[in-house]
């Protein structure tokens, strides 16, 4: 690692943290119904949407009504995406004449995009028509992100309001999230990306002559290639901002038309975490104590930086197997050094490791390098970041409500340790909250572990593990299920996942991982909102201090480590020990 690489990493973190306050306070205004500079343009649009859809924006929902609205909306979206894929052959905007997607792949993709996972079992450019991409996938990119944000805001209201019932109106939260936050930011990001050369067109794929003719597997000379294009920039902007991660092209942001330059790379990486990070500040503003928001943001940042360092160290360290082959892995001014397998030369070690950490700390899952080719410990980083429950920044909204489940558990144990019924932000944490928070911790762990267990003994699961004869194949399966069970969507690759077994199993994981967390999160909101607010005193455990941050990090790491160390020991850890024997 040279100075320049370090500078890039530090610059990224600093910019991310600097944006938290302005964007966070803007979002707080949006959700609290205060005036913003976008009102002049957007208020009429918002009113029009409500009138058109018959939404009464003043109607305050209790948590059950809210949850039903979330579920109805999401299931409807899921069915719509399914139908679009099955019928795309007869629908417009299909210049390549792509046929209907298979039922299991359609199910997988529909769940994947509705749940904000964006696991892609398919290759975009050879499977999806422009119509399916835009009306199905891009729309879901917006609304699945907005769903996560809405649930988060409802939970905040549960904390803020007291002795009440209502936690807000889902339709309003959904509309405002999309209209005031996701849409304007997407436009800005899309324009920035287009300026860097990301494609945005409806024209059919281009056939171009190769500069250097090559030969195919059969020895025939190949002189031209088909370049896939399409309306990519608009989808990429929201895929990053909404922590979706579903690329327009199969290789995602490693593709030069999706991510052509270091600057576009920076913009895309920043877009992954910017909303999740800023939502912490929004949280602080809305609960009336910004220190609470900073505490959570700092917790997230510390864990991310720790794992980022591990990833960079592992990748820059290089691979002993390459040394044996005589590959130069020493870093110089013209050679990034380290393990460059599966990485784009325009991004190098630092930006690839950073992206891998960032995309898995958020539930984004887009990639700019192939995680499967990382060093064992470098690959452990994205794997473990997902297994922590996608709460280190996490998905937009979902990361914070997942984190709050951990906060509740941390507050509960530490509250007992100071001799008081635990309370968080003035609300007592009791049996009901513990039940729901435990569920939120439990579900992703359960899905990832059981899913992997089935896949590694079921013949259908074993059939497409290409990497046999060692721990790496196990890591790939574990990665796939950890990704689906935490709504991340990134893939380790090396695993044939576009088949009925994995499409179905991963689809089930994604579905339950999303909605079995949303419902308990809303239930907590519904329970907290009815409680009295306990004024803080010196007997109250402060939840913004370095001590509490350290404790919270401890709880997160212990739960994650205790749940996954045995599995990791059989995957990346043993692989590392074998490589560096």
């Amino acid at each position, binding site marked *: 690692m040279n100075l320049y690489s370090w500078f890039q990493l530090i610059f990224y973190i600093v910019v991310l943290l600097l944006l938290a306050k302005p964007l966070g306070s803007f979002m707080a205004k949006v959700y609290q119904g205060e005036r913003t500079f976008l009102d002049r343009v957007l208020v009429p649009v918002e009113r029009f949407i409500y009138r058109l859809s018959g939404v009464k924006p003043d109607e305050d929902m209790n948590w059950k009504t809210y949850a039903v609205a979330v579920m109805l909306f999401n299931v409807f979206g899921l069915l719509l995406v399914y139908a679009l894929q099955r019928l795309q052959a007869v629908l417009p905007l299909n210049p390549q004449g792509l046929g209907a997607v298979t039922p299991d792949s359609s199910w997988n993709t529909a769940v994947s995009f509705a749940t904000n996972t964006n696991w892609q079992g398919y290759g975009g450019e050879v499977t999806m028509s422009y119509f399916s991409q835009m009306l199905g996938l891009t729309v879901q990119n917006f609304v699945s992100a907005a769903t996560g944000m809405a649930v988060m805001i409802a939970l905040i209201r549960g904390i803020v309001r*007291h002795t009440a019932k209502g936690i807000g109106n889902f339709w309003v939260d959904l509309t405002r999230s999309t209209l005031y936050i996701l849409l304007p930011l997407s436009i800005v990001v899309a324009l920035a990306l287009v300026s860097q050369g990301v494609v945005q067109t409806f024209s059919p794929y281009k056939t171009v002559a190769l500069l250097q003719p090559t030969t195919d597997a059969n020895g025939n000379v190949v002189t031209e290639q088909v370049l896939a294009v399409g309306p990519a920039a608009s989808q990429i902007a929201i895929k990053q901002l909404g922590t979706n991660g579903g690329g327009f092209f199969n290789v995602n942001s490693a593709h030069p038309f999706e991510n052509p330059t270091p600057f576009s790379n920076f913009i895309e990486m920043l877009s992954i975490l910017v909303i999740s990070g800023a939502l912490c500040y929004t949280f602080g503003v809305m609960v009336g104590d910004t220190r609470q928001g900073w505490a959570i943001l700092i917790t997230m940042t510390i864990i991310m930086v720790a794992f980022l360092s591990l990833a960079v160290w592992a990748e820059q360290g290089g691979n002993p197997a390459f040394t044996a082959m005589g590959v130069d892995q020493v870093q110089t001014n013209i050679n990034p050094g380290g393990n460059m397998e599966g990485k784009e030369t325009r991004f190098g070690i630092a930006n690839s490791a950073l992206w891998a950490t960032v995309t898995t700390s958020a539930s984004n899952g887009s990639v700019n390098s192939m995680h499967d080719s990382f060093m064992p410990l470098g690959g452990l980083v994205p794997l473990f970041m997902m297994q922590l429950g996608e709460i280190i920044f996490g998905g937009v909204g979902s990361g914070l409500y997942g984190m709050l489940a951990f906060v509740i*558990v941390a507050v*509960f*144990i*530490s*509250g*007992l*340790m*100071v*001799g*008081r*019924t635990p309370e968080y932000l*003035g609300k007592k944490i*009791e*049996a009901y909250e*513990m039940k729901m928070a*435990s569920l939120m*911790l*439990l579900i992703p762990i*359960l899905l990832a*572990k*059981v899913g*992997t*267990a*089935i896949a*590694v*003994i079921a013949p259908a699961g*074993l059939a497409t593990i290409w990497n046999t*004869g*060692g*721990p790496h*194949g*196990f890591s790939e399966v574990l990665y796939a299920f950890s990704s689906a069970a935490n709504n991340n969507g990134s893939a380790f690759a090396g695993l044939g996942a576009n088949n009925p077994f994995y499409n179905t199993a991963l689809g089930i994981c994604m579905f339950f991982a999303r909605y079995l967390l949303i419902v308990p999160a809303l239930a907590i909101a519904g329970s907290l909102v009815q409680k*009295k*607010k*306990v*004024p803080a*005193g*010196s*007997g*109250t*455990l402060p939840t913004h*201090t370095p*001590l509490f941050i350290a*404790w919270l990090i401890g709880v997160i790491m*212990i*739960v994650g*480590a*205790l*749940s996954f*160390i*045995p*599995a990791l*020991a*059989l995957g990346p*850890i*043993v692989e590392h*020990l*074998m490589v560096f*024997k």
Partner: protein
Amino acid sequence: MNIQTKKQSPYRREIYQRAVVESFIKLNPRLMVKNPVMFVVEVGSVLTTVLWIQALAGKGEAPAWFIGTVALWLWFTVLFANFSEAVAEGRGKAQAESLRKARQDTPAKKLHNAATDVQSALSKVEVVSSTALRKDDLYLVEAGDILPADGEIVTGIASVDESAVTGESAPVVREAGGDRSAVTGGTRLLSDWLIIRVSADPGQGFLDRMISMVEGAKRQKTPNEIALNILLAGFTIIFLVVCATLLPYSLYSVGAAGKGTAITITVLVALLVCLIPTTIGGLLSAIGIAGMDRMIQRNVIAMSGRAVEAAGDVDVLLLDKTGTITLGNRQAVEFIPVNGVDVKDLAEAAQLASLADETPEGRSIVVLAKEKFGLRGRAMGASDEAPEGMHFVPFTAQTRMSGVNFDDTTIRKGAPDTMIEMILLNGNKVPADLRPAVDSIARMGGTPLVVAKNNQALGVIHLKDIVKGGIKERFAQLRKMGIKTVMITGDNPLTAAAIAAEAGVDDFLAQATPENKLALIREYQTGGRLVAMTGDGTNDAPALAQADVAVAMNTGTQPAREAANMVDLDSNPTKLLEIVEIGKQLLMTRGALTTFSIANDVAKYFAIIPAVFASTYPVLTTLNFMHLATPESAILSAVIFNALIIIALIPLALRGVPYRAVGAAQLLRDNLLIYGDGGIIAPFIGIKLIDMLLVVLHLV
């Protein structure tokens, strides 16, 4: 519960022996299932025992000695947990037994209708068994009788020996009306007679409730305990999944590596038991019972575990001024003469006026005069036959003054307003310096009493509330703990403010009435605070019923004791502070042991994971940095450590984590250091030591 039992060591041989038997009885799965963590251990014990039998038959998945040893230690784990609970219960049971002795069937002299004196009562008496008495029945007791049932005195005054209930051997006076009219069944009348109205049916009396509480038989889980149980169940499920999925993972890895053997069921069960929070799971119920027990040792009977737990959450304490903050009574501290009167004359007049005054205030005037001016009262004590033609005028609510008449002299002392009115009425002038003297005393929080001789003002006596020593420091501690103290007094706001400032309370309620006391509690509760208070009078009952933690004095009335959720047998209002600490200790012990239990798992992973996968991936032995001798010894050491730590922590569970009055942040830091970091480090050392021992003993 006499004083002897109370002071005795909790670790009596008898309790131990019974606890050992109890630990086996508690293996009944129907009882175990209430504790999900330990139930899982029991199922694991059964499973490994079956595997052991299978191994003995020659078809084992591992050597029989190994499976057998694991099974044995898993059974120990369950038994140790049961033992901790049994020991905790045993202490309560011993106390219940001594209480039960007091509650034997006693003959009762039942009355069929009311009587006002003992003669007429005796003529109507019918002797029945105490179990035949029902609520609202009347009965008569005479000196030497055991009271057959709880009740309220209708007629009479008598001294009662309540040592059977309170452990206090000094007799107490009980009389009809007022705040000392409640009596408890099982206590003994020492003198006189009483006619009592029964207040509880048989089996529902105070003693019965106490017995069932200390026995812990009907112990309900408290809210925090339920929440903690949910969390522990959550962890248990996670570890169940972790261990269950390890079998397929291991099978796959064996296939992929092409060598080694898959993990055995025995090892999986051992790993599971090591990982699930058995330390806290096993000790949880002992902690709860011990919390109740600590209350009882301080002579406080909590009517529910919920109340004990709530005590730890209290953030407002309502304290009666008199008896809690100040010594029971006001005392004379100064004589202030007016109109040029000699201070000695004032003192003498004041002393004369107070000679027959039996109130502590009156006594203190006599004493002050004696101490300051060497004046000796000419007659002491209450007596109707006043010496040397003295005629004492007692205090009445109408005259609001008291005094003495002799020869042609009248001396009066009383509240300033009444006295001034009397002086003016008799055509005398009020000295110019009287008002200022009265006002300055009131401003200082004192009570002025004006003394007049022959309707001429002599001066003012300064009566002062004496704040208890050390109470100010106590309140400062409470403030640090985040608890607000509110003084309740019938005094006027000016007096109240002065005393509040002197005692260092945070707030006060002056001119308190039952209504505004109740309103104050409601107001705090609406603001989300938990309120604790003590009370003894019937007029305290509504407020006691409203408060979250309500401690009634044992000397209090029946309604007060009914409304409260705790009764202090010592009738010491300062006890509230200790009650709060016990409540906090209870929660802290649970939190600390939970942290310890979970933190332990880190070391257990380092012991077990390399051991179980070493045959498949030999390179994993790198992680065995404790250098445990063999895979078997590593697993056994972890299982044995896991069982022994329960036994080792029983004393802590029963005694509770020590509480210090510091802020929440510091408390968390200290406890995290001890139980968090300690919980990570301790098992590394413990497991290594056990492993070395196993090797030395050639057991592996």
